[in-house]
Each structure stands twice: as C-alpha cells, then as structure tokens.
C-alpha cells in the first residue's frame, strides 16, 4: 500500500441538515498513486471541490475515511497535513510581498531563516518569477499571481498538491502555457498533483489518470486513453469527447441495430450479456464508403477547418455524426439528401452497461 498517496474510503459528505441537506459526495472510494498527475473531471456541482476540501482538511466527511500515505488523517486539522492547495482565487496575502507569500508556509513550519530564504529563491526560480520577489500581489497580472500561488503551495514541499480549477480564470493562450508549465513542475518536483477541472480537453492532455465524477459519484477511473476509448457509461462517453449512441439487441458478440444491420461489437466493462442495449462509437471511428456498410442519408455537413462533420440519419431516424478530415478543396462532396454507406472501424463500437 506504500504506493498510494491519498486514499478515500467510502467517503460521504452531506452539507446541511433535514430538508435542506445536500449530498455533495455519496460514498466515493479512490486511491491516488504517489507521484502521479491525477485529475478529477466533472461538471460544475458534481463534488470535486468538496473532495479536495476533505483531503485538505477544510471540511470533515459525514462518513468514511481519508488516508495520506497510509495513515488516517480524516479529522486532522489542515495545518497539520502535509498537503497544500492552489486556490481558484489564488488567495495570495495582499499585505505580503511575493517572497513573503512564498516563505509563509516554511515560516509557519518553523524552518530556520536561512533555509526559508534559500527555499524562496529556489521557488522563485522554479516559476520564473525572480524579478518580482519584492512586488505585492496587487501589482501582478493574473498569470503571475497564478505562478506565485503555485510557488507558495510548493514551497513547504508537501506530499500532495491540490489544485482547484487553477486555470479557469486565465485566457485561452495563457491557459495553454500554464498547462505545460504545470506538467513541467509536476515532473520536476515529483509531487503528487490532484488537479480539478471541468474541461475535458485539459484533463486528457495533462493527466496520468483521470477520475470522472457526476452528481457526487465517481463513475470511472483510468488513464486518458482508457477513459476515451472504453467509456464506462453513457455519461462518460458524452462528457469526454463526442459519441454517437446506437440502440439494438445484443446476442453474443453481435448486435442487431434497431435500424436493421447486424454489427460486431466490443463489450465495455459491466456490459450485459444479451438483450436490448446501447452502444457508443466516436465520430472519428466511422468512415464513409461507397458501399458495403450501413445505409444512411446525409442530412447536413458542417465545416470546422481541419475537420468536417457529416450528420447522417439511419433508416430508423437515428442521427450519426461522422468526423472526416477536410480535403484540400475543403469540400467533402457530400450533399444533403445523398445516400451513403457508413463503415465502423473494427472494435470501435462499444456496448455500454445498462443505466441504473
């Protein structure tokens, strides 16, 4: 178990009481490995911040346990946990300089002055803010404040760093820069990062592993490829990337679509053995062929630059989106009303478990 940095065991959190009670987390169990970049991904209000607060110690769980490097810290106060947070609002101390902000943690830990000065210097270099040491936070841009907040949280050398949507306040260009920066810092320091975001692209590009959450539940944990190619259910399939959903009847490894054709399928985790099912396929896993596939009628095409999306309807009215690479001319030559055949890449059609 020494490979686990943070573990949540059946962790529940209910805010308020009686009729006003809100269940923010409904029994989440999760093990985050040492030194990994772990992302909690989910829509707003699904309980991501709550889980971070329980790990940081700002809130106590209603039930369940939180373990850090194997020891139970469920009810330890935040100032005794070797865990630091990068707040969404940065929460830099406005009355202290950049250097004093960064030195705050080590100072409270009672480190000797010389060591603090050395740490501050090292952290300033790490986030490339040496020139700004004597400025006050009010004199910094958003991106610079972000770097200081990172340096401040890293300075006490925590076992785990928690980041609550740290990039959401930045504009697109800066956000891309900081994504790379964050990844670099994580690799350089080797500290376990728990990163929260509602942006699926950010999660896919930065993470070693992703935990997808919805309405206080953890739906799937896995590396970005597994999450994308083998979504555990319909929510994950549509929240991360786009998916087409097809209904039909499963028998063995074949599925008879409601629209008629019979297709080979892959079974996702917990998929039923037989009976009526839903299967998912990504728009880029479908080809348009002259013949031999599933007959469909083109409804519309939408030009996206590198890609062109073609929306086609099957005989039972099911809409399927196909992503095609745009040709040199920019025109894929498909017109509304024309008949086409859709061919699915082998293994791309995944049977999902029944919705509960």
């Amino acid at each position: 178990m020494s490979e686990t940095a943070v573990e949540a065991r059946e962790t529940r959190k209910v805010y308020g009481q009686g009729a006003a009670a809100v269940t923010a987390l409904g029994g989440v169990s999760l093990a985050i490995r040492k030194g990994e970049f772990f992302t909690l991904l989910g829509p707003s209000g699904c309980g991501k911040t709550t889980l971070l607060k329980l790990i940081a110690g700002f809130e106590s769980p209603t039930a369940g346990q939180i373990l850090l490097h194997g020891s139970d810290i469920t009810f330890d106060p935040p100032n005794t946990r070797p865990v630091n947070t990068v707040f969404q609002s940065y929460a830099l101390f406005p009355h202290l300089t950049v250097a004093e902000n960064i030195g705050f943690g080590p100072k409270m830990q009672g480190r000797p002055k010389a060591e603090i000065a050395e740490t501050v210097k090292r952290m300033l270099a790490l986030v490339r803010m040496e020139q700004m040491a004597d400025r006050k936070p009010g004199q910094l841009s958003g991106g610079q404040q972000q770097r200081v907040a990172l340096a401040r949280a890293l300075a006490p050398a925590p076992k785990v760093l928690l980041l609550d949507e740290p990039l959401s306040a930045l504009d697109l260009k800066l956000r891309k820069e900081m994504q790379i920066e964050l990844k670099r810092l994580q690799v350089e320091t080797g500290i376990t990062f728990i990163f929260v975001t509602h942006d699926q692209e950010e999660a896919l590009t930065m993470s070693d592993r992703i935990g997808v959450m919805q309405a206080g539940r953890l739906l799937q944990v896995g590396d970005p490829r597994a999450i994308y190619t083998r979504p555990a259910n319909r929510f994950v399939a549509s929240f991360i990337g786009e998916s087409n959903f097809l209904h039909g009847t499963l028998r063995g490894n074949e599925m008879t679509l409601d629209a008629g054709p019979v297709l080979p399928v892959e079974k996702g985790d917990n998929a039923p053995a037989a009976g009526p099912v839903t299967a998912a396929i990504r728009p880029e896993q479908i080809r348009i062929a002259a013949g031999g596939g599933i007959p469909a009628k083109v409804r519309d095409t939408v030009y996206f630059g590198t890609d062109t999306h073609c929306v086609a309807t099957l005989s039972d009215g099911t809409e399927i989106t196909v992503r095609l690479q745009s040709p040199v001319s920019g025109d894929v030559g498909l017109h509304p009303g024309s008949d086409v055949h859709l061919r699915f890449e082998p293994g791309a059609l995944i049977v999902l478990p029944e919705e509960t």
Partner: protein
Amino acid sequence: MAERSSFDISRLPGFATVAVTVFVLLYLPIAMLVVFSFNAGDSVAIWEGFSFRWYPEAWQNEEVKDVTFRSLKIATAAALISTTVATMAALGTTRRRATRGQTFVYVMINQPLMVPEIVTGVALLIFFSTIKVATGYQGLGYLILAHSAFCIPFAYLPIRARLEGMDLTLETAASDLYANRWQTFRHVTLPLVAPGAVAGLMLAFVTSLDDVVITLFVKSAGQDTLPTYMLAQIRRSVSAEVNAISTLLLLLTVVLLTAFFLLTRKRS
C-alpha cells in the same frame, strides 16, 4: 437621456441659496473663532489687531495644562479600550453566516449612537455613585470606562467595514500553509484589519476628546476635562484663551480626521 430622467436635487430652484446659507452658518462661527484667537485685545467681539499672545497665555495657565493632560489621558485610554473591544465585536459579528439575532447584536453594539447622551449620563451617574460608595474609589477610571463605552460604535464601524471586505479564503490559505489559529490571526487577520483599527482608534480618540454631556455627569470634583473646563470658563466670562484652545483642538481634529479619511480610502 438617463441624466434627464434621474432626480437631481442641485437643479431645484433656490438650491444654491440654501447651500450657501448652510455653509455660512456652519463655518462662519468657526472661522470667527479662529480669527479671534489671534486677536491682540481681550475682547472676543472687537478686533484690536493680530497677536499670538493667547496661545502662550493659555499654555501658561496651570489649570489649562491640567485639564488638557486629563483629557488626553482619558481619550487615549478610552480609544485603546474601545478599539480593542470593537475589534473583538467586529470579529464576532462578521465571521459567521447571518443569524436571526444579528440585527439585535448590531443594535446593542451601536446603542450609544441611538440612546440620548443625557440618558446614558444620568444612568452612569447613578450606577457609578453606587460603586463609589461601595469601593471608595474616586479616580479617573469612571470617566475612562464611560468614554470607552460610548466610543465603541465609532471604533466598531470602520473595523467592521474592513472585515466585511476581507476574503475569508485568506484565512483558509493560512491554515493550509501550517499556521495555527493564533498564527493565522497574528499574520493574516490582524495586519489586514490594522488600517480599520487605526481609523477606529482615531475616531474614538476625537469622540472622547470633545465629550461634554456624559463627562459632566460622571466626573468627580476636580476632574474637569478640556471641554467641561472651557464650558465653565465661558459661563463666567468669555475669555480669548478659550478661542486659542478651541483652535488647537480644531486643528488636532482636522488632522486626525484627514488621516482617517486617507486610511479608509486607500483600500479601494
């Protein structure tokens, strides 16, 4: 267009006349007081030429010195006590979600602003005389306590304003960075409240310094403060000395209030 439809009091007929009259009534007497503090003659009504004589004369008056020091002593002690109490009251009233009793608590803290001074004065007179009889203590403590009490709301308001503008995440961040409760207060909360507390301190000081009504009721024999002394002087005969002292008090007040204004403005 929006300008035309909005109500603008400065466009009412006669506005300028009223405004000028009010300013004259407010500031002309004060201006005369200041001017006549530099009068060479004894009169406070007839100008006899420019002179500084009343300032050293007032200062050489042992009685004036005595009451001035007493006033400053009381004001300093009352400002310190009331600011400490007000800081704790503000921390207690701004750090929680609104509760049912909140308004009641505000009213209790700000009670001296609403209850007529004369009522407080009489109440304290009766209360303190019981204690005086019981303990035999006759010192300045009663005046300091009374002043501290009515200064609390003046200290409380700027401190509360400051605390309400403070981001509570900062305290969470401090605890995240290994600060215990006391360290969080000492290194984060206190420095951020400080400008409000200094503003409160000055406001309380000025308020204590010019109190007459409550002081008159509470003071024992020989415990005149500057304002009650001046009042007694004027009742006997109007002295030009009083003009000089008033001018100095006015100067002190203006300086403190300007500093207060600068301190509270800086935030935004």
